[in-house]
């Protein structure tokens, strides 16, 4: 939720800082501009919707448990079932 910077302007000003070859590789440039703006806006929306849907789930309990274990001075050991192994 923090620091949503430079994103609304980002979609609109697409072309401004664009790398020339990136633009050049886009086919059907002619009639595409209106559609492009529309689609670029949609890309931004979808991307954030997808991402924010995960963010909105908050912090799963397993992480809160993990952190409270890490906080205990005696809890320097490994967490049981600690991930990446299997």
């Amino acid at each position, binding site marked *: *939720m*923090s*620091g*949503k*910077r*430079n*994103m609304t302007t*980002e979609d609109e000003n*697409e072309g401004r*800082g*664009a*790398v020339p070859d*990136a*633009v050049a*590789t*886009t*086919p*059907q440039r002619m009639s*595409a501009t209106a*559609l*492009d703006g529309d*689609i*670029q806006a*949609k*890309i*931004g929306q*979808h*991307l*954030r*919707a*997808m*991402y*924010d*849907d*995960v*963010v*909105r*789930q*908050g*912090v*799963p309990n*397993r*992480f*809160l448990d*993990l*952190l409270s274990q*890490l*906080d205990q*001075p005696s809890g*320097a050991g490994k*967490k049981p079932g*600690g*991930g*990446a192994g299997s």
Partner: protein
Amino acid sequence: MSTVDPGLRDDIIAAIPNLRAFAISLSGSVDKADDLVQETLLRAFANISSFNPGTNLSAWLFTILRNLFRSEYRKRRREVPDPDGAFAATLTTSPDQNSHLDFEDFRAALERLPPDQREALVLVGASGFSYEEAADICKCAVGTIKSRVNRARNRLGELLALDSAEDLAPEKSVGIPVPATERL
């Protein structure tokens, strides 16, 4: 093990939802993503003394997570993303009916991007990092990030334009009667 300042601890907790979303976009799987986040937290706490207070905690954590993913990835050589789509699996609220198809198209298109481009696009377009911060996290030049983001957008635009062109196109040029005035 050094103790972690409570304020810092809270900030780390606050970063977890964003770390998960980023991890899902990297790994293509919710389970793998949560393992990555867990490993990231363990690393962060173990190395908390190397965090420079006052600098960007979020970027620091994202960097740890990305490095872990990269080294795991190199070890396992497993690129195959979850075919069902990790983001789809996490959906708690479905988008409204009308945009549902769009959304599916988008998700599929996103998963077709090269990992470098997808990563850059997510960091800048969804996580809210500046180009400079994203470059820092990915250990590359700012120009590289910009170019990856642009290529990602263009590629997605192409993929989605195809879809919407199919949706919008009326029976185009097929059997349209030629105006009589044009007769020879």
